[in-house]
């Protein structure tokens, strides 16, 4: 069961709107597929992105995965705890955000039900 309070993407990211800002993370499905996460390359505060661009990289022992934003806007916060402990993403993907963006959600997103159906395929 995926949390119902947020939106999802076709690339296994989640987007949670809070106070007009958007927290972005990766789903539990994504962290399981990646395996042991050993490094997260986060954007800089103030960096700007448009929907569909990659804004971070999550690296596991096996692979590097680019993380995409469906929000066009500016990075206002990043999860610095991931610098010291990237495995937080393995432990609790839905409560471990990568970055917070301020702007407009104008990319393609899925509802929790749609995302659940997608990963069940």
């Amino acid at each position, binding site marked *: 069961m995926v949390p119902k309070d947020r939106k999802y993407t076709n690339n296994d990211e989640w987007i949670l709107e809070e106070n007009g800002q958007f927290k972005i993370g990766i789903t539990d499905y994504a962290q399981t597929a990646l395996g042991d996460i050993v490094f997260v390359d986060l954007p800089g505060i103030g960096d700007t992105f448009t929907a569909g661009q990659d804004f971070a990289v999550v*690296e596991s022992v*096996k692979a590097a995965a680019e993380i995409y934003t469906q929000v066009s806007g500016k990075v206002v916060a990043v999860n610095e705890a991931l610098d010291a402990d990237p495995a937080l993403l393995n432990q609790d993907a839905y409560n471990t955000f990568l970055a917070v963006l301020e702007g407009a959600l104008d990319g393609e997103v899925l509802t929790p039900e749609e995302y659940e159906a997608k990963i069940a395929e």
Partner: protein
Amino acid sequence: MDNLKKTPLYQTHVDLGGKMVDFGGWALPVQYSSIIEEHRAVREACGLFDVSHMGEVDVRGKDAFAYLQKLCTNDLTTMTPGRCRYSMMCYADGGVVDDILVYKHSDDHYMIVVNAGNADKDYAWFEEHVFGDVQLENQSPAWAQLALQGPLFQKVLDAVGYTGEIPAKNYTFTPKVIVGGIKCLVSRTGYTGEDGVELYCAAADGPALHKLLLNAGQPYGLLPAALGARDSLRFEAAMPLYGHEMTDEITPLETNIGFAVKMEKDDFIGKQALQAPIKRRRIGLKLTDRGIVREHYDVYQNGKLVGFTTSGVPVPTLEGSHAMALVDIGVADAEDFEVEIRGKKLHAVQVPLPFYKRSK
């Protein structure tokens, strides 16, 4: 997964929750629990790998020795029965056909172990070069092969119980050991940089042998280990992997495994080409900036492109990101390099290979 080849342990992997992937046409697990945990288990206790996808070729006949001596870069003259020897087979131009392990039963009987991904190509190469009294038999389907690797491997074998001798010296083997009632060929070999053995048994006995070793090893911290850990372990020990550190375009001397190339021996395929001075060499790199180096990243020295990484694996037991790289010989002794990662040039320093060496 349905169109992939399966080892005799396929169902074992599925039952153990292995994450199955397509590995060169074989359905094999990349991990069971976690690559990091499996890696640590091998370094600190023991790990059990299914390596039944490796190919076995039986070579018999009066000319078997002369034939293999011609194909191998290493010298088989000094092998006595019961010894294993690591070697390359090269093309005439010095590129590598495959790296192999030669098991000598007798002067007219050898077993050759080849990489799974190269098995068809190798077998064709073997057939193409046959002369005199040499008979080849591809025995791969008949064998299951398990690798029991890690400092506690002997305790695990003791717990299972065996009759016969576990080979005491590295790169030796015993053709017949009964392990938990199962007939095995046991060699003191491996691909992890750790002490351990590899056990070959009849394909049909593979799952039972795996279960015996797994159960006996559990009190010692043994974990079933898969391809992910196999790669991170061999990488840490700087053991070359075909397709990465050596290819049909990378010679063994460039890979810096001259110990397996004996230029003083009589003619072997590739010898003439290997006499030319090398233009590039494998080195070890450690990233000093934050990031992860992976294979096929460009390597620079003083702003000039000098080579590329052949393998880069974030190894849990190493501090920082490491890589092996093939660089121009003129800069192969330099200290400072840059590796380009997603458009950014990050600083790296040369470090000695291997990254990990077990204490004796």
